[in-house]
């Protein structure tokens, strides 16, 4: 279909929104290299030098280095546990035709409709009761639970595409159930596993409210998302430092997005089309 002249307003509106998405990011990136005076005088001018002064201040005043390590630890261990739980579950649900399996799948599907925020306080009590309050360990145990509905549903869809003959052939060779999972299903579902990893990487790395409440503000434990807003009060209105800190927390996400851009967009989009 051709887009005629009457589409001009549409073009203008869409690109305006695109500019609204880009400008703040540009402003952040530029300001991260500028002093406060330069930011206020000419907010949109490119930085005159690429000094890392603001980044250093952000690093030191909010302990961002340690916070990035903490975030990394929580994210990696949570991802591992998510896979450990979700892959066998999806394997079981995809192969089974029983009524119990159908019911379990329903339970996970309904999980989409439970917003994680709702149970913030009871989860806080659970952390206190298990003696894991103010630890990263509780987040590592907790985050996979929030990710299970999405992960299980995606993986089940992928595992249903594995032909039954593959499993029969393996069975004839005397493979156990576990061997079937490990050598037949897991390798064939690598794209699905990658999708689950990417989506959950984003969620885990970006998680804020639970990390704030459960891990708390202790600089030795807190994640980068919790450390970031403290820059606002520590530095007052030093925008250079504030923006430098924000840019730092975005770097890992941008790295992954840029390297795996195709894969990531596909992951998000294919999941959506599949409904």
């Amino acid at each position, binding site marked *: 279909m051709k887009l005629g002249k009457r589409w001009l307003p549409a073009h203008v509106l869409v690109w305006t929104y695109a500019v609204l998405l880009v400008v703040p990011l540009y402003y952040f990136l530029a300001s991260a290299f500028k002093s406060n005076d330069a930011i206020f005088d000419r907010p949109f001018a490119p930085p005159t030098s690429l000094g890392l002064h603001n980044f250093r201040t952000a690093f030191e005043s909010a302990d961002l280095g340690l916070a990035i390590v903490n975030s990394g630890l929580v994210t990696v261990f949570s991802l591992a546990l998510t896979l450990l739980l979700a892959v066998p579950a999806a394997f079981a649900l995809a192969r089974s035709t029983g009524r119990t399996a159908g019911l379990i799948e329903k339970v996970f599907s309904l999980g989409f409709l439970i917003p994680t925020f709702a149970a*913030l306080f009871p989860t806080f009590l659970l952390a206190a009761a298990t003696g894991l309050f103010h630890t990263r360990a509780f987040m590592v145990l907790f985050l996979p*639970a929030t990710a299970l509905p*999405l992960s299980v549903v995606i993986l089940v869809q992928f595992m249903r595409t594995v032909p039954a003959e593959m499993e029969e052939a393996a069975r004839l060779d005397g493979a156990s159930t576990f061997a079937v999972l490990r050598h037949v299903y897991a390798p064939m579902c690598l794209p699905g596993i990658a999708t689950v990893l990417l989506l959950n990487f984003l969620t885990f790395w970006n998680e804020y409210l639970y990390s704030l409440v459960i891990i708390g503000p202790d600089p030795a434990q807190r994640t980068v998302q919790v450390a970031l807003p403290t820059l606002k009060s520590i530095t007052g209105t030093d925008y250079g430092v504030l923006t430098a800190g924000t840019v730092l927390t975005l770097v890992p996400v*941008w790295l992954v*997005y840029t390297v795996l851009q195709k894969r990531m967009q596909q992951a998000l989009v294919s999941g959506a089309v*599949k*409904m």
Partner: protein
Amino acid sequence: MTTLTTTPDGTAARRPVPPSAPAARSTPRQGGTVLAVPALVWYLVFMVGPMIAIFVIAALHWPGMLQPVSFAGWGNVRTVLDDPVFWDAVANTAVQLAVAVPVMIVCAYMLGYYVAQRPPGHRVIRYLLFIPGLISTPAKAMVFYAALSPDGLVNGALQGVGLGSLTDAWLASPSTALACLIALDVWSGIGFTAVLFAARLNSVPGELGEAAQLDGAGHWRTMWTVHFPVIRDYVGVVTMLQFLWTLFGSAQHVLLLTQGGPGTSSTTLSFLVYQKAFIAADLGYSQTVGVFLFLTGLVGLLAIRRVFRQTY
């Protein structure tokens, strides 16, 4: 945001039993369902258990973590309903939902349709639309803080074009604080939702639109009378999820940007749950509002489902 990407598929085609296998060796799929148990247990302990606990705590009189707990029955409900702050929060949440969700969905649908037509530059647009889906809530809040604080980007731009008289302390002014939060919802919600709609619209057969064009329908009519009915149920699902995220997720934005103030002008229901639990230490009150929030979510979901029910 990422929970938007898939939706329950429920009854996807079960793999047919291979007809070739004779009865002799028909023990292929056993020893399976047990493997789903750890995930299920995990899910019940960390998600469903706390959900149920909300209802229990709502019936308790619990004035602080280390204070004695007593049964309150409907006491909390009465306290909450008599509290003007609660009603302020209800009003703010109602405004927020009524403005943010429809604006977001309508804009995202049109934007998604636009991208699906593959106009010049659609690749760039598509790339940019992912941005709000990638950055964390605190980072988004920092963006809005830098833009809206008294010496921030918006005021700077206004002064730059000679409209200095319009500058305001946007986040600290009772008349604009809530509007700022709604702007944040809309700004970050449109992009990713549009990507979802675009992907869905791409799976609509092209002939459908072409046929409508041959009949003389413009894009505006094609968009709303041809394509919209086809993906109506999908729009409904996305609306449900965005509704839930706006309803429950606003606590983080409020906490980071306005702390519910000035006064109660930007206190939303979900922030009230947070504030009463972790700042005011009135736990029964907090979870009673939590129950209310939960019920609002449920009623909203059912209402949205009704509105978007497939009509053909």
